[in-house]
């Protein structure tokens, strides 16, 4: 495909121009003129990150498989490309047919990380689309957003016309059909479409709600503005996982996850209290073994990849994991295909599985005890003991892995210095074990992130640990873990604070995001671009204090900014879990006993979790 000369001139001056040229294998360019509904799928981060997102790939294939609909991709232009486009006066275009974004009917952003928000504004602006939803009339595309951030989309409510809460596989086609029908009918209006869309389950139209505030700045109420608009929007789920994609786009550039990725299970049964994914992606739904095998086969044939990743939040928990892996290895024996299994549980069984998969032990194994002390692990309901970890590490070292990665968090509710010292103690034990088994070759990568309380988790009411204390605890670990063969890394404090404020913020943060963007905030998720001082000014200029969102323990009665949105969990369950956490009581695992989170009732499920029996049928 030849590129327009105006674009070619821009491309010669930017880094990695292949991010902007498209034409990848399996990318789909449908006829623009003869397709009725045109959807742009936008990912507000670099091409390499966006191309690794499973959800985008699912929706891309799903929409393009429908007659009368086309879906094209666009990613956030890197900072040099943004400048080059502005200098050349070129609008941001899709990768496939290179149409300016403003020519699409629907422009859907995937919001997976709060620190991508400013890139959404960059993309709208480069497309020439007014940033504020209330400045856009019928002539502009309808701006949608989905993804895990939409469990509290309020900070982006000013910019987005419509949020999809939950899984998009059914909602998006429903929205497209509605749009198709309404737009060709006489008297189409944007507000009419949004009003009709609001009646679709899982659709949240922020302009149809009024948020009022109390004198102290907390939310007083969130009320629908019109009759017929639901007071509460429940997330959507697909009760049965639809077939996995067949023809994922094969990037030319090396992207973050450059491989075939097949989802084997959605949801997680572990009930970790800090984990938003584990809470909001309920219920557990396992994909039958034959479907996984079939999807892997199709994707390998259509992509030419040589690596397969079986994706889920906790792969070892997939009921038929061993039969699945054995069948997969049989199927591809002698074909130079490697299989990886991320998200391993901390147990010997996981090491056994990893052993089955990896002929070479180069990549290292990762385990996530998350907290250092038994007490704190009960608080967060991470059911791993020190003995589990040591036995697992020993099995890994003995099977030939020289590198083990351990993930911990600091700043967890109820955490004391002793809990943090316990991290150091555990790491030292694992290190000593490694040296016993392997000598000086044993290596430990210890990654310590700062806990951020997230909406729709039992910790949604909790305060973040004060910044000074986080820093002191990071320093403590640095001191304690100055050991041979141990590499320690931790997350940036200012980044965590901002993520904390944006993830639990209200609508007023829209002004902060826009101001930060105007001041130059871009790619905030990238350490090399993140400029916390811009955000500090933006908060100040909006008259808001980030600590109001991060540092405050919220009362049970407080109206949380996302209280009109539901992940299907009952508030009673979340509060109960929070109370038990503070008492140091561990919680449940759905596979052992149902904790009554509310998902079963919300979605009227006959079985929960949806697992597979030994015969491969759903139990």
């Amino acid at each position, binding site marked *: *495909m030849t590129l327009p000369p105006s674009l070619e001139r821009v491309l010669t001056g930017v880094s990695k121009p*292949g991010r902007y*040229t498209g034409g990848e294998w399996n990318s789909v360019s449908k006829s623009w003129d003869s397709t009725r509904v045109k959807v742009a799928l936008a990912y507000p981060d670099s091409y390499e990150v966006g191309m690794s997102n499973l959800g985008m790939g699912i929706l891309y294939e799903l929409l393009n498989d429908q007659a009368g609909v086309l879906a094209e991709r666009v990613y956030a232009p890197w900072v040099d490309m943004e400048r080059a486009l502005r200098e050349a006066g070129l609008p941001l275009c899709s990768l496939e047919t290179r149409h300016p974004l403003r020519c699409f009917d629907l422009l859907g952003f995937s919001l997976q990380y709060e620190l991508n928000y400013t890139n959404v504004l960059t993309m709208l602006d480069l497309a020439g689309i007014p940033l504020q939803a209330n400045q856009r009339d019928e002539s502009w595309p309808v701006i949608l957003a989905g993804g895990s951030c939409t469990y509290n989309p309020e900070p982006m409510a000013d910019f987005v016309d419509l949020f999809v809460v939950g899984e998009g596989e059914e909602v998006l086609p429903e929205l497209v059909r509605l749009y198709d029908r309404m737009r060709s009918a006489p008297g189409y209006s944007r507000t009419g479409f949004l009003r009709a869309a609001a009646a679709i389950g899982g659709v949240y139209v922020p302009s149809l709600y009024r948020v009022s505030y109390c004198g102290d700045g907390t939310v007083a109420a969130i009320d629908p503005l019109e009759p017929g608009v639901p007071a509460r929007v429940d997330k959507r789920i697909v009760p049965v996982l639809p077939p996995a994609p067949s023809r994922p786009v094969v990037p030319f550039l090396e992207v973050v996850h450059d491989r075939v990725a097949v989802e084997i299970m959605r949801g997680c049964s572990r009930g970790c209290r800090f984990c938003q994914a584990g809470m909001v992606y309920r219920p557990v739904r396992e994909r039958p073994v034959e479907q996984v095998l079939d999807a892997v086969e199709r994707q390998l044939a259509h992509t030419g990849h040589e690596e397969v990743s079986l994706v889920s939040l906790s792969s070892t928990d997939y009921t038929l994991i061993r039969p699945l892996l054995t069948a997969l290895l049989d199927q591809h024996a002698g074909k*130079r295909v490697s299989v990886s299994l991320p998200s391993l549980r901390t147990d010997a069984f996981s090491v056994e599985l990893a052993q089955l998969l990896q002929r*070479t032990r180069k990549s290292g194994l990762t385990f996530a005890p998350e907290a250092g002390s038994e007490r704190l692990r009960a608080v967060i309901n991470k059911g791993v003991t020190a003995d589990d970890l040591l036995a697992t590490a020993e099995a890994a070292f003995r099977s030939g892995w020289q590198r083990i990665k351990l993930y911990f968090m600091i700043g967890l509710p109820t955490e004391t210095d002793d809990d943090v010292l316990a991290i150091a103690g555990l790491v030292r034990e694992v290190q000593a074990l490694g040296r016993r088994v392997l000598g000086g070759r044993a290596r430990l990568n210890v990654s310590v992130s700062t806990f951020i309380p997230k909406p729709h988790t039992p910790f949604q009411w909790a305060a973040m640990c004060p910044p000074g204390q986080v820093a002191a605890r990071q320093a403590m670990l640095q001191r304690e873990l100055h050991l041979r063969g141990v590499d320690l890394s931790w997350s940036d404090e200012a980044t965590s604070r901002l993520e904390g404020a944006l993830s639990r913020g209200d609508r007023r943060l829209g002004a902060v995001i826009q101001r930060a963007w105007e001041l130059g905030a871009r790619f905030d998720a990238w350490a090399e671009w993140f400029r916390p001082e811009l955000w500090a000014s933006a908060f100040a200029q909006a008259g808001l204090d980030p600590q109001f969102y991060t540092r405050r323990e919220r009362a049970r009665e407080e109206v949380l900014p996302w209280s009109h949105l539901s992940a299907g969990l009952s508030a009673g369950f979340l509060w109960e879990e929070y109370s038990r956490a503070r008492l140091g009581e561990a919680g449940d695992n759905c596979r052992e006993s149902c904790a009554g989170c509310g998902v079963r009732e919300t979605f009227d499920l006959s079985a929960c979790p949806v697992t597979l029996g030994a015969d491969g049928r759903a139990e």
Partner: protein
Amino acid sequence: MTSHEVQRLRIVFAKRGSLVYISHLDLMRAWERALRRAGLPVAHTQGFNPRPRLLFAAALALGCSGRAEQLDLYLEQRIDLRSAASALLAQLPAGLDISSITEMDLTLPNLPAQVVAAEYRVTVEPAIQPAEFQQRIAALLGSTTLPRRRERPDGVRSYDLRPLVQELRFAGQEHGLQVLSTRLQADGQATGRPDELMAELGMARQVRSIERVRIVLKEEA
């Protein structure tokens, strides 16, 4: 060390369109994936991380198109050239076009070792009169040395560009652009870069396109 090799195919292909903007490494990956999709019995290197046996004549700089790029493909099972061609054609992304597939003697030296030079065609925006363009070319060819410094990831390197320029001529105008044709040394010793040549001519900013039209091998030279 490699797995058993029973057949060696030389593929001549073009790299153009949007593929001009992918790097050599990306191009190699694109070929490897296309070969796997086509199901060709590609031989692999041995060891922990077996790689498909695919040897490119010479890396093409990002931003340049190639009219007749070359690679040698080693197979572990013999296949019929016609079916290899049709299997591959169905799997190549737009911008990669095969112009020929020929069987080569397995015992010949490997392809990169045979490369001696490359010919380029460069188009430039007409910032100066053709006469002056030709003067600059003559001056460049008349010089005995052209010391240049090039920034590389591992530091600045000084070298002499002059001996690398084997041919250089003004090739007229086309679609309002001036065309320059050149042949640069490209072997184990040194590789002349067309962008460096254009900078030496004082026309780096006017370059609109660079196409490598031919890779010259030893036996043809």
